[in-house]
């Protein structure tokens, strides 16, 4: 790998570290949670990664609206798709964790429902994109929708759940980090996990974008 791919190497090292240390490093002994506290290293970074990659998607969408190029549209689209993937994995892992700590696969918790609605908003982004035949129209309208989707989804994830009661840590006056993460042993794994999984999200989005860009180039060459 070349010099500008150092962050991919960092992602590999951190993720391998997280897989091993996440299972072996000491964690606080807490009732109900037991060893499932280690899910913090895998479930929570999905949402951090999703937020970061969706923010990148908005960045590309804004840049597209300023200078419309097909490349910026492709990068915004693939970043959003990667974010949606991370979010779905986050919902699935959270559901498994909830089953064995709260006793149900899904509860009508504001944090859970907020996340589900936010994912639906992003699902509509994909539907919206697929409903245009004109490429420029598709790129422009989905760029605008993408900005609004981010602005609507973030309060649903991070603000509204804090205004009511919630079981979920980090919602309803329920501090996310005070209980587990003040533990310095967990910080040693949690922060690398967040960085590692976020970098992986950017790597996946970059690979997907490069495939789309190549496809486009080959298509243009065939037309020429």
């Amino acid at each position, binding site marked *: *790998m070349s010099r500008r791919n150092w962050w991919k*190497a960092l992602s590999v*090292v951190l993720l*391998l*570290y997280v897989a091993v240390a996440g299972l*072996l*490093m000491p964690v606080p002994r807490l009732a109900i*949670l037991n060893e499932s506290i280690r899910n913090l290293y895998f479930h929570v970074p999905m949402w951090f990664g999703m937020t970061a990659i969706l923010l990148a998607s908005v960045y590309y969408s804004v840049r597209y609206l300023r200078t419309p190029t097909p490349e910026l549209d492709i990068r915004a689209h693939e970043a959003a798709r990667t974010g949606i993937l991370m979010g779905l994995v986050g919902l699935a892992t959270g559901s498994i964790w909830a089953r064995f700590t709260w006793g149900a696969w899904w509860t009508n918790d504001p944090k859970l429902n907020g996340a589900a609605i936010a994912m639906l908003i992003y699902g509509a982004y994909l539907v919206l994109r697929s409903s245009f035949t004109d490429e420029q129209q598709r790129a422009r309208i989905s760029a605008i929708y993408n900005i609004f989707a981010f602005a609507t989804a973030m309060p649903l994830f991070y603000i509204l759940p804090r205004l009511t009661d919630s079981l979920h840590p980090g919602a309803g006056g329920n501090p996310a980090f005070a209980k587990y993460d003040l533990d310095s042993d967990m910080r040693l794994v949690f922060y690398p996990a967040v960085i590692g999984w976020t970098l992986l999200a950017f790597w996946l989005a970059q*690979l997907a974008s490069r495939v789309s860009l190549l496809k486009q180039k080959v298509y243009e060459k065939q037309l020429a």
Partner: protein
Amino acid sequence: MKNSLPKLRTGLLLLVALLLPALRIAAQATAPNEPEMADTLRQNGKIYVVVAVIAVVLAGLLFFLISLDRKLSRLEKEVRE
């Protein structure tokens, strides 16, 4: 490609250094009446088998990503020419 070996060594050393605190788990004392953790698994030593399997699976996936990345780079170069 030429200087990828020292980089690999640096990466491995970094990984080993990061994992050193995990040795402390061996020294973690278990008092009675504490919430149940995977102590038996550790006593049997079998948890390390699971950790090794997960590490191999993840390494395989990441290796696949790296090779995909390289293939794409080559293809991009070909299309550019």
